[in-house]
């Protein structure tokens, strides 16, 4: 108890408050700008934290992580160019809302849902980290294969107007994820002799090209066809826009609350499992909301619930990601892996002993995380006003600058022009996918899940090849397989009358 109070006291010192705020601010900024992202900012900030106290350093980094998950939604909603890949599903309904002049409403909903999801997952972390981590440990390769199978079936239902095109896109994404050194034999696959491809196609340049730059290309084209001045973006602060389009009303809150709760649960669950990630969580949350909705056809045309569902789910991953890190010393994501380094630099070894050895620090971090959520709400609230000004600038000035940022951001991920090349290739590919209605969203999911699915599947085969029947004695595997079949059956039944 003493340690808890002391920890909270540590977190509330002015200097620590300052670093939390600075972290959240940096996170929102890099999250919002296509090309920059939170893991990158954290990697770069790690050396800066050498000179801070452990608590200040670590909370600064966690602040970046938290701010980053919200930041991505800003450009996703305003420009349809997700600032970070997690926000892909936020754009589905966010951008249509912005086009209807309800951009400010969407931004606010995204912020509230994001902070709610994040706080929810933090509470889970504070209270049940240890037991949850033990459950997560029970998830071996066989269980993870089943989890991924289940996730993929859910997401396949999201593939837009044509199921066949959606599936092609997903398979294509999964195929591209097989590029790189084979995990088992260490031989290169489809690398065409490029050492840069040995670790596979890097996801950040791919995502920047596919999500941000290809959309910019489409917008430039639209601008050209409209002839110069063409369509001007809507000023979402304009007086002509009624107040109810700028705020989230109490009634809307109430309708979205169930969705936000559901998404927070999904995001927290995904976050506690190493190896799935926030992009997938966003999609699953969105998919679940659409499935549960009374009017699923409105999703994708500017449904506020869609924004809430996606943002709550992808943000709820942040806190839960730290569950395996703090309880077991195993990083659940790229950001968490980099955070381990930051802990070590400060002489703290995150793992089973951290609660015993550094209780004051751990509770300090928890308190700081709670404060960071509050700051996220406040700074995000101001920040969205600032970013919303963006759409007032003429496209002929913003678009070239975004192109440059895409290039710079792609370069930064590998410090090489090779990543820039990858980014440009996927920008052109993305143009065709958008025009021909091949869901780039299922493509990204296929890419993000494909690699882990292959790894887990191959691990399972080696582990169980001499005793395959044992797979059917594992309750988690059986339960997930049953769920998968149930979802397939329901999807089939729903589609049957329509098709």
């Amino acid at each position: 108890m003493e340690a808890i109070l002391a920890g909270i006291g540590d977190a509330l010192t002015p200097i620590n408050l300052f670093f939390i705020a600075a972290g959240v601010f940096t996170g929102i900024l890099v999250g919002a700008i296509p090309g920059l992202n939170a893991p990158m900012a954290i990697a770069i900030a790690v050396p800066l934290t050498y000179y801070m106290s452990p608590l200040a350093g670590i909370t600064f980094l966690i602040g970046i992580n938290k701010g980053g998950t919200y930041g991505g939604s800003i450009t996703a909603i305003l420009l349809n160019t997700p600032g970070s890949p997690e926000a892909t599903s936020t754009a589905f309904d966010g951008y249509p809302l912005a086009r209807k002049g309800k951009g400010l409403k969407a931004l606010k909903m995204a912020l509230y849902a994001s902070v709610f999801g994040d706080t929810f997952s933090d509470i889970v972390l504070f209270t049940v980290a240890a037991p949850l981590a033990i459950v997560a440990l029970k998830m071996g390769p066989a269980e993870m294969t089943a989890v991924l199978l289940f996730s993929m079936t859910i997401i396949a239902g999201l593939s837009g107007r044509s199921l066949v095109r959606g599936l092609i896109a997903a398979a294509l994404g999964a195929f591209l994820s097989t590029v790189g050194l084979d995990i088992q034999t260490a031989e290169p696959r489809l690398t065409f002799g490029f050492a840069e491809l040995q670790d596979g196609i890097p996801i950040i340049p791919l995502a920047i090209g596919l999500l941000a730059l290809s959309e910019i290309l489409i917008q430039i084209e639209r601008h050209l066809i409209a002839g110069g001045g063409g369509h001007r973006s809507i000023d979402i602060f304009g007086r002509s826009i009624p107040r109810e389009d700028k705020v989230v009303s109490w009634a809307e809150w109430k309708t979205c609350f169930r969705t936000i709760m559901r998404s927070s649960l999904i995001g927290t669950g995904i976050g506690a499992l190493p190896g799935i990630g926030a992009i997938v969580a966003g999609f699953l949350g969105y998919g679940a909301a659409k499935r549960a909705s009374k009017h699923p056809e409105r999703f994708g045309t500017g449904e506020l619930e869609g924004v809430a569902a996606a943002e709550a789910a992808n943000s709820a991953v942040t806190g839960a990601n730290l569950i395996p890190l703090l309880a077991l010393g195993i990083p659940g994501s790229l950001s968490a892996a980099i955070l381990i380094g930051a802990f070590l630099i400060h002489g703290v070894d995150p793992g089973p002993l951290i609660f015993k050895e550094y209780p004051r620090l751990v509770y300090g971090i928890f308190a700081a995380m709670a404060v960071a959520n509050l700051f996220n709400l406040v700074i995000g609230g101001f920040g969205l006003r600032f970013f919303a000004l963006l759409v007032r600038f003429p496209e002929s000035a913003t678009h070239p600058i975004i192109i440059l940022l895409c290039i710079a951001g792609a370069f930064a991920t590998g410090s090489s022009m090779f990543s820039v090349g990858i980014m440009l290739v996927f920008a052109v590919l993305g143009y065709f996918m958008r025009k021909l209605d091949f869901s780039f969203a299922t493509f990204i999911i296929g890419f993000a899940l494909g690699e882990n699915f292959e790894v887990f599947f191959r691990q399972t085969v080696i582990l169980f090849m001499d005793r395959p029947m044992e797979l059917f004695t594992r309750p988690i595997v059986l339960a997930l397989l049953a769920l998968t079949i149930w979802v397939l059956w329901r999807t089939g039944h729903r589609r049957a009358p329509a098709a």
Partner: protein
Amino acid sequence: MRRNLSIIAVATLAAGTAALLPGIAAAEYPEKPITMLIGFRPGGAVDTTGRLLAASMEKILGQPVVGVTKAGGGGTVMASTLVTAAPDGYTIGMGASAAYALAPQMNTKLKFKIDDFDHIATVSIPQDAIVVRTESPWKTLDQLLADAKAKNRPLSFASQVSIATLMTMAISNKSGVQFNVIPVKGGAVGIQEVLGGHVDVTWSGSGWHKQVAAGTMRALASMGPKRNAGYPDLPTLKELGYNFEFVDTFMLSAPKGLPKEVLAKLSEAVKASLTPEFSKNLLSKMRLVTDYRGPAETTAYLHKQHDDMAPLVAELKKKQKK
């Protein structure tokens, strides 16, 4: 007004470009910032060694040493980049020996060999171990192998591909126990699989320390040529009678053809950086042992590692062909 602004704009652009142009060559090395490519992800053991070293070398050389992450392929991405850099001492690379000694043997498509570099110095070594979880009945490596033999079942072994795979081959050659090697991405995943009881054994470079300290895992043996300083009771594979040793040493390298005085200056700078305080820092924070070796010794060591592993690599390739 308009004209003034354009002049300012042009001037800004010109100034920006001028700042970029490399300075005109002067006599003494180094006279501009040095780029240190780092072959592994931020936060890991190699990265930390590299960044602490960079900070320290900066003071000695009087020019900034800037760490640039070039992670991937177990250090081979960095090596492939470094080999194409100009050998002028302004691009150096922090990597690990497996990338130079082992990777080109395993993967013939890589476009570099040990001697395509001027290796500047060995900096530090990790303290590794073969580990099982505490709930398991095995207290020693011999017990583990005897148990597997008695039950006539293969042991599952989570491995980060190359080096640990070779090690299991060396062990099965002598003991006759078969290993099912489960490929994992990184030591942390291996530890997770073992903790969860999905896999029997794993090998870890650094993540195992805290698990052993917490009593969740048990160390059985290490791969190094001598016992880990922090774990005097942990036997090495050599002592247990297996003809296998490998230490993935962390080293600083440069492209081949460095001027002699530049190479000397760099390796001196590394040597001077590794103060007792530096070592203490590295040991307490990352559990790494500093181990300075000069250019000739480092290169000779890489060749020794290469030759030691050659028969096992040949055997592995033969197996894969089948």
